[in-house]
């Protein structure tokens, strides 16, 4: 299927990406723990933000990729897009889980409760449930075009649901005081430039990490396919 040269080339590209991502993450860590000043009102715990927000960004981006690949799949019916959507959903769920873990750890000392039914936290939880269901759907059905089509439909439906979730959860909690760290105006407000720079750096590092993980996940699926193909074509006798 793949010729050996292309494989080698890909591996080299992969190595460059690994070093680049590792370096970016290292720089981001230095930024988070050494460079950036401690926030005045919240103290050290606010440093969680520099990886909490990138995790959220990464998972959201991953779900967006699922959406795009699902549409492309239904259009082109090419297994390639199915692989991308599957890989991206898996990565999205992993980072969504990290958001859901770090969120309460941040909330406990600041708001005094592990879980606050704040609009963002609630939406993230629902999003997580949708994409866990997506992965379950994939795990439940046999490999083939049916699984791919069903997953693609769910990938589209799930992403289109995000605005509805956002507004319903926002209005649901209107009469509660907005938590002051994350307000409706956005995250950038009230942060000085060094904080913004660190956050930006961290965002970049995590985006690189996404592509690194995508590469690995996609390779995994393709290896599985290749093994499957060989078994099917050469060892048919049974």
């Amino acid at each position, binding site marked *: 299927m793949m010729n050996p040269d292309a494989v080698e080339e890909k591996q080299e590209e992969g190595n460059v990406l690994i070093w680049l991502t590792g370096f970016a993450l290292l720089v981001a860590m230095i930024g988070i723990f050494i460079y950036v000043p401690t926030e005045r009102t919240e103290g050290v715990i606010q440093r969680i933000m520099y*990886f909490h927000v990138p995790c959220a960004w990464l998972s959201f981006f991953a779900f967006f990729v699922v959406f795009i690949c699902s549409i492309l799949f239904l259009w082109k019916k090419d297994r390639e897009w199915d692989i991308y959507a599957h890989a991206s959903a898996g990565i999205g769920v992993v980072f969504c889980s990290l958001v859901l873990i770090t969120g309460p*750890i*941040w909330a406990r000392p600041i708001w005094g409760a592990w879980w606050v039914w704040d609009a963002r936290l609630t939406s993230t939880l629902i999003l997580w449930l949708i994409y866990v269901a997506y992965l379950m759907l994939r795990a439940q059905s046999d490999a083939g075009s049916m699984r791919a089509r069903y997953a693609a439909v769910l990938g589209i439906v799930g992403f289109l649901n995000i605005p509805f979730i956002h507004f319903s959860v926002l209005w649901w909690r209107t009469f509660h005081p907005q938590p002051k760290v994350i307000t409706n105006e956005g995250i950038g407000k009230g942060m000085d430039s060094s904080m913004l720079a660190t956050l930006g750096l961290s965002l970049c590092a995590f985006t690189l990490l996404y592509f690194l*993980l995508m590469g690995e996940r996609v390779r995994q699926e393709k290896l599985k396919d290749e093994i499957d193909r*060989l078994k099917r074509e050469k060892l048919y006798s049974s």
Partner: protein
Amino acid sequence: MDNLGFLFAANVFVWGGIVYYVYTLKQRNRALEKDLDLLKETLSKEG
């Protein structure tokens, strides 16, 4: 305010989680590659 414990826990989860995920991915890919090589070898011996 001293919330270093919380910060530490969050870090353990995030970086531990990422490292674990990357590790399992790598491991799985390596196992699959080995499987594939084995399969190819068996097939070339037979054919």
